């Protein structure tokens, strides 16, 4: 019985398949313009800080995207997925900025089994604004992001929290499509975020204070050690 129900003549099947494909194509045409941000991010050229840094990317951050709904029939909606590029950029940057980079197994907090590190960085994208030529009437794509960083101990106890902005702009003239232009603006914004973080991390007052306390403690440990005993410095979370 069931066999007779699904066996349809070949010509009907091909017509149905063609109809389905046309319908899918029509629906795809109605969807938003999707951009998955892709780029190459260079390693920072700097002396790595002698720290073992853990990093925790939350769901919101690792799958970060923004959606702009079309205001009229002449405009198209935009879906820009930056999550993968964010993770790629921050992994590359932090890997070059710190002696050791560890991806945490879970969010830092009391009772959470995790690796032993000096501190854990948790990045967030708090706000994202952008302009596209249909909004500004000038051929410029711009992306502005505000990041919030939490630097915490493995136990979840806060060390520092600060915000930082990043900006990327690209002219359309050198690009072939709107998607490529938006992608490049996002890549420029991510590079800017990396540059801002790399040059500003040690200048954040709470981070500066934490690093000074660490240095003093390491110095005291060095002095209290007997001169003959030379061991590798252990990773000790403050």
């Amino acid at each position, binding site marked *: 019985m069931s066999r007779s129900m699904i066996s349809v003549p070949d010509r009907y099947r091909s017509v149905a398949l063609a109809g389905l494909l046309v319908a899918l194509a029509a629906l795809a045409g109605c969807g938003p313009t999707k951009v998955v941000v892709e780029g190459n991010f260079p390693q920072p*050229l700097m002396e790595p800080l002698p720290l073992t840094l853990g990093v925790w990317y939350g769901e919101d951050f690792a799958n970060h995207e923004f959606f702009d709904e079309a205001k009229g029939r002449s405009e198209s909606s935009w879906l820009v997925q930056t999550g993968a590029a964010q993770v790629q950029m921050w992994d590359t940057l932090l890997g070059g900025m710190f002696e050791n980079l560890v991806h945490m197994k879970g969010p830092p907090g009391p009772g959470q089994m995790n690796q032993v590190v000096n501190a854990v960085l948790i990045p967030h994208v708090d706000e994202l604004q952008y302009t596209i030529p249909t909004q500004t009437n000038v051929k410029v794509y711009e992306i502005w992001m505000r990041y919030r960083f939490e630097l915490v101990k493995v136990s979840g106890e806060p060390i520092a929290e600060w915000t930082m902005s990043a900006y990327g*702009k690209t002219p359309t003239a050198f690009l072939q499509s709107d998607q490529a232009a938006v992608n490049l603006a996002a890549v420029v914004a991510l590079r800017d975020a990396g*540059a*801002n973080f790399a040059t500003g991390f040690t200048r954040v007052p709470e981070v500066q204070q934490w690093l000074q306390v660490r240095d003093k403690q390491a110095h005291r440990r060095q002095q209290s050690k007997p001169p003959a005993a030379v061991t590798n410095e252990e990773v000790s979370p403050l």
Partner: protein
Amino acid sequence: MNRSLLRFPLLCCALAVGPGCVTSTVDEMTFNEPAAGIGDASVVILGRRHASDYETEPDFIECVGDHIASRDKSIDVIGELEFINALYPWFEPRTAPLRPEDIDRLLLQEPVAEKMAELKTEYMIWIDGSTVRTDSAGSMTCGIGPGGAGCFGFGTWGNDANYEATIWDFTDKAEVGRINTSASGQSYMPAVVVPIPIIAPVQGTACDGIGDQLLEFLSSEF
């Protein structure tokens, strides 16, 4: 048949007209020119991108670099992207040095100093400026039908280019020259069936102007 006969002379006309006219001026002030050239050292040409209302176009920087490298093969011009990637994050728009004295601050970082030594950069040339469209007028209508397609109308627009190159001597950490070039031109696009673009190569002229002056400074052959 008649249409194709008409199109042929129009196409020939378009090819024969060539580019529009451009007026260009170059001002130059340089010191301590390397009389024997720069030897096996290298030069990097970078665009300034810290202003909020304009950005020096990457293709203009590439054009100047190509102009120099193609006329004097002994000059090693490092690509802009290659250089800023190799020295990330120190030459991004927000972190790039604005004065020659800032180089000392950069070289305090050992990895940066090592990379600079590896690249053998003797001169760093910063180019600041852009090409803008000044005015436009006219209108053009294009249509397509069973018998073919065509346009009718007239359009015109002007372009202004203004660029300044600042030369930093990397060894002495000093500014050793400034070259300013400005160019302007009017482009036209008459269309009778086929649009005939008469483009004024404003940016290209500015590129040649600044490139020639830089070549005179850097090369022993010019």
